[in-house]
């Protein structure tokens, strides 16, 4: 099976507190630690496991800049066979539909049976997979937590819906699936693994090499700023040393029936 996995480089929220900059119009980008979007690691792991079961290859692809090279290498250290970086100044303004259009152009240059994306990334929109599928006119399923080969030209996939209920579907290949966390346990990548792929050639493709133009890269949906809304009072913060805080907390818990 030829599998394409779309990945993206994001600020790592487990490593950083995301805050506003002093101008209050963007997030503070100095000292941010970046990594692969959490959901994408699950998608790459799933692709590698499928390839190891049925053969084929795994290609990881991203729309990004030079710095995105490192996340492609990380996913190749996990076991992906190839990496492709889509990079062009014209891509910087792309919204979700723009990113999907760029990926579509790249996907159309290959012949993939399965295209995976993460279910969402730091923006929480969860939009690129479904858009890409619609542009390619391929069937789509989102929030996938299980994939099972079933017959020659289809897979059985489980979508996780409300309450943790699994919605089972049969979907014909080729198709696009967005992967939800928990589908597998992504393997650990050590420094040695990264070193092994340090010199692998990762082709970079620009807008002209993809055969698209500026007007194909949508930027209709614009983020104007970042801000922190005033949410009113919020929680009553307990302050003091640990002992004082614990005493106060225990009093409150007793009053609310939290301590039997």
């Amino acid at each position: 099976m030829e599998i394409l996995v779309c990945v993206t480089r994001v600020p790592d929220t487990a490593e950083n507190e995301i805050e506003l900059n002093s101008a209050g119009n963007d997030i503070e980008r100095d000292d941010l630690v970046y990594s692969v979007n959490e959901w994408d690691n699950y998608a790459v792991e799933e692709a590698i496991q499928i390839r190891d079961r049925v053969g084929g290859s795994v290609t990881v692809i991203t729309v990004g800049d030079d710095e995105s090279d490192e996340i492609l290498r990380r996913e190749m250290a996990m076991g992906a066979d190839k990496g492709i970086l889509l990079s062009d100044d014209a891509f910087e303004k792309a919204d979700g539909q723009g990113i999907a259009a760029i990926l579509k152009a790249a996907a159309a240059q290959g012949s993939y049976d399965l295209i995976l994306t993460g279910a969402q990334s730091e923006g929480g929109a969860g939009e690129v997979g479904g858009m890409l599928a619609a542009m390619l006119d391929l069937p789509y399923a989102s929030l996938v937590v299980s994939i099972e080969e079933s017959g020659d030209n289809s897979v059985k996939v489980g979508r996780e819906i409300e309450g943790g209920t699994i919605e089972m579907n049969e979907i014909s290949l080729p198709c696009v699936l967005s992967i939800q966390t928990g589908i597998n346990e992504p393997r650990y990548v050590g420094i040695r693994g990264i070193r092994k792929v340090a010199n692998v050639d990762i082709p970079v493709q620009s807008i002209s090499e993809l055969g698209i133009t500026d007007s194909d890269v949508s930027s209709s949906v614009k983020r104007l700023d970042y801000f922190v809304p005033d949410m009113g009072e919020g929680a009553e913060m307990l302050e003091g040393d640990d002992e004082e805080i614990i005493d106060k907390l225990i009093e409150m818990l007793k009053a609310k029936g939290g301590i039997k």
Partner: protein
Amino acid sequence: MKLFAYITHRDGTADDSAQELAAAAAQIAPGEAVTAIVTGSGEDLQTVCDQITSSFSEVIKVDSSELGYPNGELIRKVLTNLLPENAGILIAHNTFGMDLGPGLSIKLGSVFLADVVGIDKIDGDQLTVVRQEFGGQVSTHVQCSLAAGAVINIRPGSFAADENAEAGGSVTDRSGDTGDLTSGRKFLELVEAEVGDVDITKEDVLIAVGRGIEDEDNLEIVEELAEAMGAAVACSRPVVDAKWLEKSRQVGTSGLTVKPKVYLACGISGSFQHMGGIKGNPFVVAINKNPKAPIFQVADVGIVTDILDFLPELTEKIEEISS
């Protein structure tokens, strides 16, 4: 612009989001008529259509045995067929809306706004909405033109329903307008999540642990606190993803909905998917080392500290008192 809302339903009852979509639509196009679209089959469908006539001035009913279960791929086709050019359609940003919305925007040639939590302003055909990024740590204003239509996914619970609405809508049957209903994706069945050893939905006091616990071995300190308090241990999704606790302990939209009296959230940031599983207005205590964690905006009481140090101290004190 002409606004529509796609209504999901179950067992003959419209989802709570139906009225919320009507409320959001009223902010985008004040005073304009909004049309609901409901798909399904049989008597349940008619019941749902009748229910929502109070919130929508027109209700389009699409009845087909193939639409008995809302397969996002099929609904996309139906809506692409039914909607007029440049329409705006509102959909709940739940697991169904996430499946349907993005692709629908491509098929309609319109813009897509995901997970909208607020309408900031409408100026001609320029709509500005509020979204959140980074798990709710920061918000953003997002702007687009509605001229070519829009698919707008609305976060459940973000718009207050108008309980006294009297739109007095009429139901129109458009079952003949589904168009082609073949799809490469076939719905097979629903498999319910497994039940666990402890039923956290019935517990009065829950100690919920999140990614802040850092390591499986550290779960011990949470279990010890729960024991001292006579509480049960619950968790956020990453703890289940890491296989540290069973799925039956997960609180949230894709886990269980709990109704405790007291909820102690330890090392949990407060994403809407997590908080969405906490009902009944419990006393929420948040313990988190990041003073800007979104959970402090919704908790009753907050403590900024490292749970790895704090929880064992708390346990010790509670044990001291009760012995």
